[in-house]
């Protein structure tokens, strides 16, 4: 079979598997977010942590719970990483410097998993599984909980209650993330991902050299790293490492896990608002961007632009032979269109346009389909803006799903849209203005600028992948990118929950012939256009200095 045909079949198989899961998984998530029944183990947990599982919270209380949980998580993880050399299973790893531990703790709590350390030499097994992997679960659950609160804002009327964060957190972990993780951890282990508690094993090779073969509980962490759109690799090479991703089969399973929940959540949305067509419209926009980006990225990589790649005859630098161009491009598009940031090939060595697309994907705000929960709430905020724009055109007060979008709602939506670009562009600008920080670039010229732009785009959008050549384990980058991650995570959540509270208070208005239908192809087109214009106008100058300049000059 030819490479091109195999590449197409691979993408088709992925789309087919996701389509099969759309309804059952979306409905299942809707049910667990709306049912009033608690499992016995959940009641036990509510008792242990001292909350009333039947009491809903106002949006400020819900927000306070999210922030408190994140703050405690950062402190706990920081402590665990800093003290790991005194704890079990640390494999003789030295103590991590303070600025790096702070950056790492924020990174995993913010669902970013930006890594300024190398997994195999800086993390023991205990810190990996009881620290980092736990945040992989709970930060994913926080994202889904926040979008659940936003959807409740649309479905509830004349109330100030948007749900109970502790109940959402517990249910999402226990009923959704944990069962899927157990099943797919075993699937990955069966295909060669390691799962043990060994340290390094020294072997003497056939030519007499000594090689260190690593050990670790990798399969259990690998699955949630992808399912929760986290992306932090057990090893430095992330999902390019053969022990994280050994075969073409495990590779497709991993891409499937990245996209599974984000693509099913629109169904949850449609189900909860009582009109599945609304879910189809949202998933259509997500799918449109994903298909276009995957196709363009694969095309760019197969043309191997760039002087060095032309000389090699194929864009195989930083790519694994067992994946090749198609499976690497598919992974790269999926990881940057979600907030995952796991990589099975290294984006820094991608072609100018291919690498530029990975940055552009993140700049879209990670909404196609985006991170777990965060992708859908980002898309719903853009839908609110699209409805507003349409309302301006015809001079009517815009309404979405029966809720009026007045000044208050539009303020929160606008603040949401402005937050990430501000962090990205200011951060990149400051870094480029400081000579010491400019020196962190590995490559020179436009490509070096792209490394810095990528770093801040990745941090502020909570992606976590990198143009890995840049040296970021410095006081300045650890601190600046840490701030970008935490503000890029929490500020949008503040605006989303405020929007949820404001929508829930309203009395719904009945639909009239003048109401814009938000389930038709027209709306799909409108929303797609708004996304492109918002992103395009915001980031075009920065993109022109980096990837576009490089692509046109080579």
């Amino acid at each position, binding site marked *: 079979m030819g490479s091109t045909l195999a590449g197409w079949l691979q993408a088709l198989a992925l789309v087919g598997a996701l389509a099969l899961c759309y309804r059952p998984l979306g409905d299942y998530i809707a049910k667990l977010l709306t049912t009033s029944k608690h499992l016995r183990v959940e009641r036990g947990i509510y008792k242990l942590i001292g909350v009333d599982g039947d009491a809903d919270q106002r949006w400020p209380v819900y927000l306070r719970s999210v922030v408190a949980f994140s*703050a405690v998580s950062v402190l706990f993880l920081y402590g665990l990483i800093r003290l790991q050399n005194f704890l079990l299973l640390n494999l003789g790893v030295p103590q991590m410097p303070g600025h790096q531990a702070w950056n790492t703790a924020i990174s995993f709590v913010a669902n970013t998993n930006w890594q300024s350390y190398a997994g195999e030499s800086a993390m023991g097994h205990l810190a990996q599984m009881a620290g980092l992997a736990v945040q992989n679960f709970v930060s994913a659950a926080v994202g889904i909980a926040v979008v659940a609160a936003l959807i409740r804002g649309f479905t509830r009327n004349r109330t100030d209650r948007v749900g109970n964060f502790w109940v959402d957190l517990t249910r999402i972990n226990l009923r959704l993330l944990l069962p899927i993780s157990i099943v797919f951890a075993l699937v990955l282990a069966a295909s060669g991902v390691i799962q043990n508690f060994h340290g390094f094993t020294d072997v003497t090779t056939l030519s007499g050299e000594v090689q260190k073969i690593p050990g670790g509980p990798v399969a259990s962490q690998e699955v949630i790293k992808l399912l929760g759109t986290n992306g932090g690799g057990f090893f430095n090479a992330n999902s390019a490492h053969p022990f994280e991703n050994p075969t073409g089969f495990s590779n497709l399973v991993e891409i499937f896990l990245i996209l599974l929940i984000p693509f099913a959540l629109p169904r949850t949305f449609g189900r909860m608002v009582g009109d599945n067509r609304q879910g189809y419209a949202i998933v259509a926009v997500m799918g449109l961007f994903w298909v276009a980006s995957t196709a363009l990225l694969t095309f760019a990589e197969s043309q191997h632009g760039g002087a060095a790649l032309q000389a090699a005859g*194929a864009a195989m630098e930083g790519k694994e032979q067992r994946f090749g161009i198609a499976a690497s491009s598919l992974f790269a598009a999926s990881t940057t269109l979600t907030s995952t940031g796991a990589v099975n090939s290294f984006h820094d060595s991608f072609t100018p346009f291919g690498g530029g697309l990975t940055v552009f994907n993140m700049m879209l705000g990670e909404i196609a389909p985006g991170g777990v929960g965060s992708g859908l709430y980002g898309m719903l905020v853009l839908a609110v803006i699209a409805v507003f724009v349409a309302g301006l055109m015809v001079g009517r007060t815009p309404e979405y799903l029966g809720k009026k979008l007045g000044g208050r709602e539009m303020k929160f939506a606008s603040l949401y849209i402005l937050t990430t670009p501000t962090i990205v562009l200011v951060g990149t600008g400051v870094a480029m203005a400081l000579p010491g920080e400019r020196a962190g670039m590995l490559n020179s010229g436009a*490509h070096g600028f792209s490394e810095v732009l990528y770093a801040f785009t990745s941090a502020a959008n909570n992606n976590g992948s990198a143009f890995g050549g840049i040296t970021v384990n410095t006081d300045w980058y650890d601190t600046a990118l840490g701030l970008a991650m935490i503000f890029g995570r929490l500020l949008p959540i503040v605006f989303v929950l405020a929007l949820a509270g404001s929508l829930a208070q309203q009395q719904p208005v009945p639909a009239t012939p003048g109401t814009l239908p938000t389930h038709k192809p027209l709306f799909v087109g409108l929303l797609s256009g708004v996304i492109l214009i918002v992103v395009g106008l915001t980031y075009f100058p920065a993109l022109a200095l980096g990837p576009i300049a490089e692509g046109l000059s080579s």
Partner: protein
Amino acid sequence: MSKPLPTTIRTHFTALRALLVLTVILGVAYPLLVTGISQVAFNDKANGSFVKADGRPIGSSLIGQNYNLPKVNPDDPKEEPKPDPKFFQPRPSANNYAGDNSGASNLGPNSDDLLKAVNERRAAVAEFDGVDPAGVPADALTASGSGLDPYISTAYAKEQVNRVAKERGLPADTVAKLVDEYTEGRSLGFLGNEGVNVVLLNKAISEQK
């Protein structure tokens, strides 16, 4: 009765308790469960797919290795290692196949360093294998993402057959057959890319009489 704590403080205690409970379930019980099942059901794979020769482990079938000649002066760190012509050679590696230091070169598509490395590798590989420089495949000229890629393309494996056969005094047919034997197609016929496993192929070659 003491005064109840302010709400904000109480929320943080709730958060801490929730985090601890979830850490026990997701950070301890879950990985132990998966480890237990994997160790019983997929023992060999869960432990790293080790390959043995004469009863001792020589590596993992998933982790690529160097096949170099012994150094002339083992104490000279500057001496460049020379590839051993008796073995199939793997792809270039950004970390010299160090199992405790995975990673890529991260050199950009227009990087002068990468361009120079590619051109030098092309000349060196062509001379080593005695072939036309224009025919050397891309995987022989580029470093992988992990630096531990155990696979090479079939084209690169075929290019090396004559050299290995000659050095070992084996018929070229025998070596070519082994290459075919250790060529792995795409998973399920269409997932990923095909390649030749260098670790397993070299083990098989070195066991030939």
